[in-house]
């Protein structure tokens, strides 16, 4: 795909609220590109609680985060949204008169009439343990994701954590690494049982090591890790290693949003509840990331916010047209857009 995109709307965040905004904008004839820092749609629903039941979605007595995401994707299909995953919007420039230019971490540029920030709690970033001295090794010896497997060939790896990422990378890197040691705080794992049993087999065969403990100190010079101290129940062991891969899940950071000159209240973007516009005309904000008197961080509130935002965005981008509310039950025009005419 081209690195330059022109569109009516860019939605930042592919969580449930961002996804439903595609629908509301689509009904009004506005096409959207949707960006997310994650590798898949669904936001928190997909990343934090895909299997957990949600009980407060209207007309769904119970639905999982994953099912909600899948249903929303099905619902917005007629509007042909374009998704850009694994990317982060770093800069927004422009105005409602001239249009906005968005730049991203992956080097894409978007030219858009309006921007909708539906970024939930911000962007998901790996949790980084504050082990003394760790900052000096970030990016040289300490990695929070594996981008290129080959760079770990022949290395002495310390992998930390008990979830799927930690276990998957142990199994994946073990064949090419010089040695793999898994460190986890207990002898139970959240990872799928199949990976755990594979890991235990490798340990029994002497092909990798597993230590119950926590990394407490890193040693090395010039960004090159030489050893790590692991605190176990009984004592502390110093282990030689040259790469550390901590997998403790994700945390949310507000990220670049705080640099966009929008009026904030703490980590939340202030909006006008008639339009869900931020303090900058043409930039809207919906869902958990916004705030206003009476705000409730509920998915259903985010859906409502998306509908009002879409009408305001239409009025702003098409001042010559009168925006009328049409019903999906009866409007032939909407039926055509929905592909059910």
């Amino acid at each position, binding site marked *: 795909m081209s690195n330059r995109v022109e569109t009516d709307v860019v939605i930042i965040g592919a969580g449930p609220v961002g996804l439903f905004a595609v629908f509301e904008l689509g009904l009004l004839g506005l096409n959207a590109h949707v960006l997310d820092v994650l590798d898949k749609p669904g936001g928190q629903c997909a990343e*934090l609680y895909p299997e957990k039941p949600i009980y407060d979605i209207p007309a769904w007595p119970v639905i999982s985060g994953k099912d909600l995401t899948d249903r929303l994707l099905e619902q917005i299909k007629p509007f042909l949204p374009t998704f850009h995953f694994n990317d982060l919007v770093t800069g927004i420039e422009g105005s409602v008169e001239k249009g906005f230019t968005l730049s991203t971490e992956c080097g894409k540029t978007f030219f858009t009439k309006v921007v909708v920030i539906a970024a939930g709690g911000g962007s998901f970033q790996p949790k980084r343990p504050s082990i003394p001295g760790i900052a000096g090794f970030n990016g040289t010896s300490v990695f929070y994701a594996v981008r290129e497997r080959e760079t770990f060939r022949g290395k002495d790896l310390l992998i930390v954590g008990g979830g799927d990422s930690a276990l998957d990378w142990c199994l994946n890197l073990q064949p090419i690494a010089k040695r793999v040691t898994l460190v986890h705080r207990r002898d139970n794992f959240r990872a799928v049982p199949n990976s755990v049993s594979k890991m235990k087999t490798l340990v029994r065969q002497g092909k990798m090591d597993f230590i119950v403990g926590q990394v407490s100190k890193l040693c090395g010079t010039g960004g090159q890790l030489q050893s790590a101290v692991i605190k176990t129940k009984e004592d502390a062991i110093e282990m030689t290693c040259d790469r550390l891969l901590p997998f403790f899940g994700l945390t949310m950071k507000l990220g670049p949003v705080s640099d966009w000159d929008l009026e904030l209240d703490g980590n939340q973007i202030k909006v006008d509840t008639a339009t869900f516009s931020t303090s900058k005309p043409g930039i809207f904000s919906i869902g958990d990331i916004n705030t206003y008197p009476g705000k409730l961080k509920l998915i259903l509130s985010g859906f409502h916010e998306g509908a009002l935002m879409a009408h305001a965005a239409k009025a702003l981008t098409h001042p010559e047209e009168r925006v009328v509310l049409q019903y999906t039950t009866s409007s032939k025009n909407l039926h055509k857009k929905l592909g059910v005419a």
Partner: protein
Amino acid sequence: MKLIVTDIDKTLHEVDFKEDDILMHVLRDANMGILAECGGSCVCATCHVYVDQEWLSKLDGIGDDEEDMLDEAYEPNGNSRLSCQIQLSESHDGIKLTIGPKWD
């Protein structure tokens, strides 16, 4: 009723609570420095606290979900709990706890 909270800077606070309050809500509303990113769904471990030993047994036991999620807390130990999973009652008046360390 009161909680005795040691925050991340080792400052002591007394925080009021009512019967049936969720500990995480009490700490969050009193700005005790917990993130509670997931809002209390037991899926993020950013409301991690250490409960003083003498009070641990007064709490309901830790659930499997919570124990699993503590894997994503920073430096959990035997006193670790996720405050979103603790409902307070009269028997917890005076409970002492320390806010867990934060991730970078």
